[in-house]
């Protein structure tokens, strides 16, 4: 190598062609690819979609005759939205003017907090989704008719206070499993979508931390 890298850098950029600024096109309408803006946007879209979805489920469940499920889902989904809207306020506060380490760290911290809160929530909402689904079907007219038919046949089913006890056992097991594995199901779900971004962030932060040491 004849020239030093400093010389190559200086001399190379003396030529005019090297530094031609691209034209800016309609900046207002450009979709921001910035990771935090992207997250804010995705977050907003997700939350709005959940709210719309909760209304759709509520109406549809009434139409198909399982309103209990619809009402349950409506409350669970909107609770998730409320919690995440609060979390989003902290995301908006992240300052882009700090140094790279603080900036990435702030985002990483927010992400971890958000994941921890949603992981805890998942342990409740996955089993609750299942319970409301079962209740929805249980209180539907079709199932009640079928159940009455079963009851008319003697010794077909063991009841305590009109509740088919043996039927509740698998429901309880599934509910318990969903509560136990809720956080893991959530982790899996999140890693499918954001796994690559998280790995990238960890890699960057680790590299800067090595320099800070």
């Amino acid at each position, binding site marked *: 190598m004849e020239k030093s890298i400093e010389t*190559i850098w200086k001399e190379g950029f003396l*030529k005019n062609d090297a530094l031609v600024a*691209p034209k800016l096109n309609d900046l207002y309408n450009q979709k921001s690819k910035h*990771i935090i803006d992207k997250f804010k946007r995705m977050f907003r879209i997700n939350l709005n979609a959940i709210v719309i979805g909760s209304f759709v489920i509520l109406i549809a469940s009434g139409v198909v005759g399982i309103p209990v499920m619809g009402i349950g889902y409506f409350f669970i989904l909107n609770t998730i939205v409320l919690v995440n809207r609060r979390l989003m306020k902290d995301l908006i506060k992240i300052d882009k003017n700090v140094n*790279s380490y603080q900036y990435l760290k702030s985002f990483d911290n927010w992400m971890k907090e958000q994941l921890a809160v949603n992981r805890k929530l998942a342990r409740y909402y996955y089993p609750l989704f299942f319970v409301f689904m079962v209740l929805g079907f249980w209180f539907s007219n079709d199932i009640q008719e079928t159940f009455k038919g079963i009851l008319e046949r003697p010794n077909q089913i063991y009841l305590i206070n009109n509740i088919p006890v043996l039927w509740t056992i698998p429901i309880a097991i599934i509910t318990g499993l969903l509560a136990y594995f809720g956080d893991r199901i959530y982790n899996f779900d999140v890693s499918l979508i954001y796994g690559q*971004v998280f790995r*990238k962030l960890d890699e960057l932060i680790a590299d800067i931390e090595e*320099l800070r040491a």
Partner: protein
Amino acid sequence: MSTDFYTSSILPYAAIIIKICRAYTNTQEDFEDYYQEVCLQIWRSNENFRGQSEWSTWIYRLTLNVCLTLLKKNSKHHVTSNHLPDVAAEDNRTFDDESLNHLYIAIKQLSEVDRAVILLYLEEKTYQEIAEIIGTNPNNIGVRVKRIKERLKKILDGKVN
């Protein structure tokens, strides 16, 4: 963004933005996207400029923050230290100056953080300024710059891919 703001506050520093964006992208299309995004962020964030550093330093910081966090989901463009040869090979943009071309290809074979360090060093930022922009310990910057320069020299001499 007003044309006035772009002309008076961004365009004089376009060279800085171009040099950094160029080092973090593989295609002209990505480069233009990054450049545009940086300009957008400068415009959005300029009210937060507190004058504690120079405007140019602030632009370096913001440009790096934007580039470091513009994470492509597309694996073709996903840059990690494990995929370095591909990254260099994918970029077919050229400068008129052949040596500068080689230097850029070599810089792009570094990790994202090393790229930031060497770009700031080449822009004659002091170790203290580099440390402030990246958020690291200034004592380690000198050692890291030395190591990066050695690696770049090896790459340019053809001793490393």
